[in-house]
């Protein structure tokens, strides 16, 4: 546990003392007010206290009621010992809210794993046509992926749209599974220093021309620079490279944005795309279903 520990040193003993005083105080009070044969005042007789003419009579609790009280006090001691009740003691059972949550998760996994294992036997192309699987996949996606890609999977700035047929690393079910399992690091180096200000402007003009637009720089000069510096990844025809996750620059689909300003920013500063690793977070069967779902979106 991190954070401030409120039960340090004397506080710990202090809390235990308060709990003990309370429990033993209740016990003493009950014991002291019980029915006693040697009582000087008989049952039903006045205790000698009178308030506005209303007398207090000696009417102790019935025995069965008293015993119930005793049982609750014994229960309190047992409970505080079993669970973390005495100051910062861990409790005999070793119960924590986290462990309870983990047990519940495990129970759920055991329950649903069978179904997922069944799905895992079926090829993903086939799963992608099954309505039940799509619904399951949608829920998995909502819990694990929607936070970046959006619940409609249409992506956002820096997070690819998964519903079109444009893929950075390839859109076959196996490729999607690979992406999910191992994550991806989309590394675009910063080329501002290497190209110089003029160079960047020209390359931007060339990149814009690939999707039928014009920029401030000289696209012809930009093309030369491009072939030197960029084609290694994006390819001589700028159609991208699935091996490296280099985007196709000719289709007017942009991961970070396609305006002149944003492309300039991209070339100057580079980009660091990160898709997290999911193989430690989800079971292989779940990833299988999820990959099938994502695959179904692009069809």
């Amino acid at each position, binding site marked *: 546990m991190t954070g401030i520990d409120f039960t340090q040193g004397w506080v710990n003993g202090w809390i235990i003392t308060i709990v003990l005083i309370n429990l033993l105080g209740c016990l003493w009070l009950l014991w002291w007010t019980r029915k006693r044969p040697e009582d000087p005042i008989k*049952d*039903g*007789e006045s205790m000698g206290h009178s308030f506005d003419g209303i007398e207090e*009579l000696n*009417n102790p609790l*019935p025995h069965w009621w008293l015993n119930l009280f005793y049982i609750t006090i014994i229960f309190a001691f047992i409970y505080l010992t079993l669970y973390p009740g005495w100051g910062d003691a861990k409790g005999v059972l070793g119960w924590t809210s986290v462990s309870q949550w983990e047990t519940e998760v495990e129970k759920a996994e055991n329950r649903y794993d069978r179904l997922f294992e069944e799905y895992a036997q079926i090829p993903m192309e086939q799963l992608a046509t099954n309505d039940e699987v799509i*619904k399951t996949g*949608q*829920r998995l996606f*909502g819990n694990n992926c*929607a*936070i*970046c890609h*959006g*619940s*409609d*999977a*249409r*992506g*956002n*700035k820096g997070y690819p749209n998964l519903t079109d047929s444009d893929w950075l690393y390839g859109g076959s079910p196996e490729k999607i599974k690979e992406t999910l399992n191992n994550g991806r690091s989309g590394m675009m180096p910063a080329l501002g220093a290497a190209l110089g200000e003029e160079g960047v402007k020209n390359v931007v003009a060339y990149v814009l021309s690939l999707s039928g637009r014009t920029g401030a720089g000289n696209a012809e000069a930009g093309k030369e620079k491009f072939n030197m510096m960029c084609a290694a990844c994006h390819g001589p025809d700028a159609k991208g490279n699935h091996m490296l996750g280099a985007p196709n620059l000719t289709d*007017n*689909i*942009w991961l970070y*944005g*396609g305006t002149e300003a944003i492309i300039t920013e991209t070339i100057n500063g580079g980009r660091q795309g990160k898709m997290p690793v999911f193989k430690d977070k989800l079971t292989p069967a779940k990833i299988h279903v999820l990959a099938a779902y994502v695959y179904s979106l692009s069809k």
Partner: protein
Amino acid sequence: MSTPDKIAVKEINPQDSGDLYKKREKIYQRHLSGFFQNIRIVTIWITLGVYFLGPWLSWDSRQAVLFDLPERKFYIFWFTFWPQDFLYLSWLLIIAAFALFFFTVLAGRVWCGYTCPQTVWTTFFMWIEHITEGDRHQRIKLDAQPMSTKKFVKKFMKHSLWLALSFWTAFTFVGYFAPVRELWFDLFYLNVSGWALFWMFFFTVATYTNAGWLREQVCMYMCPYARFQSVMFDRDTLIVTYDEARGEPRGARKKTANPDEMGLGSCINCQMCVQVCPTGIDIRNGLQYECIGCAACIDACDSIMDQMNYPRGLIKYSTENAIEGKPIHILRPRLIGYGVVLGLMIITFLSTVYSRVPLELDIIRDRNALYRETWQGTVENTYTLKIMNKTQAAQDYHIDVSGLDNIIPHIPKEVSTLAGELLTLVVTLEMKPEDIKQRNSTVYFTVKSASDPSQEVTEESRFLSPRN
């Protein structure tokens, strides 16, 4: 200063000590028959009949009344109630409460006397007691005897029948929450799930102890309603009363004797009214909080009066005002007030149930991105629609968007759902920048059933966009 009027109080149970704890004296109710007893037999048949047959009714090839807790769905004939419909249950409980108030003001504890489950089951159990052990005097004798084979057989018969009835009660109760036919087969194959078994055991024990052993103590010490019913009584409430003016002075006499000459009233002090009372009180001491208004003493006394050739009604349903010869007001503000409220509640309940649309829509906006700008410059918002088909049939729905001009919806033309399905549908709305008038606008989603246009529901959400 005038001295205030003192109300004469009669000490009914003089206690030797101030000890407030009283040990229960077992009540042996004498068997009787009569007009009000017959009414009770009818109400018991009706209530038990409804209870025991309830789970076995079918509707559309499934159990007609089923409270499916794991599924969070309550099936009641052609209705399926979802958790969102809990309001109806509140209305129902409020109606039940006001109906209780209304009838209590009108006629005292008729609920207790004729239809309360405690009374119904206790009466049933007493009848079993009567056929196995005999009537009151035989039971008193039997209990006083030392254990013998004969006594054991009688007791064994009684408790076996009690337990059998208790178990059947418990089984039926569980049958309202788990499909009763499957439960029935599971019983035979000893295949009942743990929880069902636990609840069957629990309700068997509860029924057996309540109706067999606790009986009137539930009414006297446990039931909250019995505690506060007295504040609903007024001087015109029907109560079981003993006509003191006519009955006193009480005393035994021959059937042929003339009571007037003997200086006696109509009460022959035969104790019948005490012996038939399920709570063991003597109604001749006046109204007491233990009285559940079951009218057993009325039947008992009337039968004696018939034998004596006296007019009936020494003990009868009457009101305080009627006994004292004061004017009777049946329609009094309290009753009219309860009646009006009760009527309003019933009308509200029926109209809301009748006009209930078995379709519900929840809209959840994406939490991570308020909006999304596409590379074409348009703005997109994403919504998750939760469409709840609360009908018992499959439905196809059309989804419409309104409230914004020139909005481009990315929504399937038609979605289909199974009966009772909760469909999750992710939809996207897109707008061109020139159509966006403000950063935050209202947009309405309308879901309509293709087969039944009356099933339509509209919910509002927001369409957000960057500063334009």
